């Protein structure tokens, strides 16, 4: 049933005087202006405001990154000037040249021999960088660990410089073409980049001081495991920057492999393992790799995960070679991972990670006991940068 007041209202509307022509024109004009405001001006303002907001975010990030780079270069310059007596601007120019060094990846059109090409390229790069550092600071030539640490610093500066240049390139493109969506994409990845940049920035003083970083957890595990072994003997080998030793643990012969410290290097673990199989003719029943692994957001730092396969990051050259050797000789590969965030992996080792290493040493003993028999041979590989960790 229709309410009486509603009917009354409808009657009033119908009885209202019609608009005259002037009023109708004003009414139309008013609606057109509103239409232009809502669909033309306001979205344009909104987009301009958003563009300005993202632009300021990206330019703020670039300014911050530039400040970090200059600050790190100053630290490095102070370090060098305490060792050599040369023109500061000349040294800075040389550092900036090293930061601009480019590595051209081998072509993958024909994949045959690609891993060998990568390995050659990485070795050439490391050698070249070390020689450049010695040329920069000749007084360090007799102190290899410091040269290696300094090489790591140059690596970090190169990485920061690369991030800066790439982000700056897309930022300038976005401004040039007023590309709203390009800026949105840049702004979207900024939080992740900020974390990486902060981690890299924090690692420079750590590398200069030669402190162990989170990534040193693998080599540190091998170092601490040594104290559980008996009859330790170092195996002399021709593998550069790599430590190889054998010892007895619960009647098993254990081969210990890690990068040779305390200088910052990851060594050539694949070559050392090849030497165990083909130089010593050992036939290990188990290979265990220990490495730091990036944690997911929900995971706790210092948590430990076990699994199968080679625990190793990087391009994958050494991983490929170790997998090939293990497959050729039928050795199962066991992995122990110590979880940490990127800032933790690149900065001075935290107490949490230090304590996690002790737990991994315990687990390592249990794994060797559980999966091998007395008399068997086992390879334990501490993967990672061995900065601040000797053998």
């Amino acid at each position, binding site marked *: 049933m229709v309410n009486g007041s509603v009917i009354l209202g409808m009657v009033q509307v119908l009885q209202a005087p019609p608009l005259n022509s002037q009023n109708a024109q004003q009414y139309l004009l008013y609606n057109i202006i509103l239409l232009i405001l809502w669909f033309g001006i306001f979205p344009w303002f909104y987009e301009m405001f958003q563009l300005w907001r993202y632009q300021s975010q990206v330019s703020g990030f670039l300014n911050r990154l530039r400040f970090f780079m200059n600050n790190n270069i100053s630290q490095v310059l102070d370090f060098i000037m305490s060792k050599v007596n040369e023109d500061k601007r000349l040294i800075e120019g040389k550092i900036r040249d090293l930061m601009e060094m480019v590595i051209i990846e081998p072509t993958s059109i024909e994949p045959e021999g690609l891993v060998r090409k990568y390995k050659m390229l990485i070795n050439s790069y490391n050698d070249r960088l070390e020689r450049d550092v010695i040329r920069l600071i000749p007084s360090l030539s007799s102190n290899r660990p410091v040269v290696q640490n300094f090489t790591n610093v140059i690596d970090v500066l190169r990485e920061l410089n690369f991030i800066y240049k790439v982000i700056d390139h897309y930022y300038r493109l976005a401004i040039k073409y007023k590309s709203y969506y390009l800026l949105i994409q840049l702004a979207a990845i900024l939080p992740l980049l900020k974390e990486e940049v902060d981690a890299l920035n924090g690692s420079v003083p750590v590398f200069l*001081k030669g*402190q162990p970083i989170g990534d040193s957890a693998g080599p540190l595990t091998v170092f601490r495991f040594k104290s559980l072994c008996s009859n330790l003997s170092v195996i002399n080998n021709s593998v550069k920057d790599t430590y190889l030793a054998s010892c007895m643990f619960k009647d098993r012969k254990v081969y210990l492999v890690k990068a040779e410290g305390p200088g910052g290097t990851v060594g050539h673990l694949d070559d050392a393992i090849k030497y165990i199989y083909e130089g010593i003719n050992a036939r290990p029943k188990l290979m265990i790799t220990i490495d730091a692994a990036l944690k997911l957001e929900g995971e706790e730092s210092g948590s430990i995960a076990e699994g199968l396969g080679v625990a190793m990051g990087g391009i994958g050259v050494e991983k490929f070679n170790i997998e090939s050797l293990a497959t050729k000789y039928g050795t199962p590969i066991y992995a122990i991972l110590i979880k940490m965030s990127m800032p933790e992996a690149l900065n*001075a080792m935290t*107490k949490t990670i230090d304590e996690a290493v002790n737990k991994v040493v315990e687990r390592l003993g249990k794994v060797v006991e559980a999966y091998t028999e007395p008399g068997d041979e086992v390879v334990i590989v501490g993967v990672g940068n061995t900065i601040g*960790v000797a053998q």
Partner: protein
Amino acid sequence: MLISIDLYTTLIPTVITALTAVVLFYIVSRELRNTLAVSSVKRISEYVTLRCPTCGYVKVREFKVGDYVGKVDDEKCPRDGSNLVIMGIGKEQVSA
């Protein structure tokens, strides 16, 4: 006394303004709290763990440039006089 309040010209703008003010106050106060919390944390201590290779005596001291894990330190064990060995280097946040 009857006060007439127009919905579109008075009430809605007032509500929107009040809500904006509340949100802005919340954001600013949260940022301020975070800043204060960060500034009150704690200096980072870099420590070195030393251990006697013969009796297992453990000591912790501040990190010095030149220290590395595996280094035989100049410091002697108070129990048997052996040189202590650096077994670990780490950092932790401590109250200032």
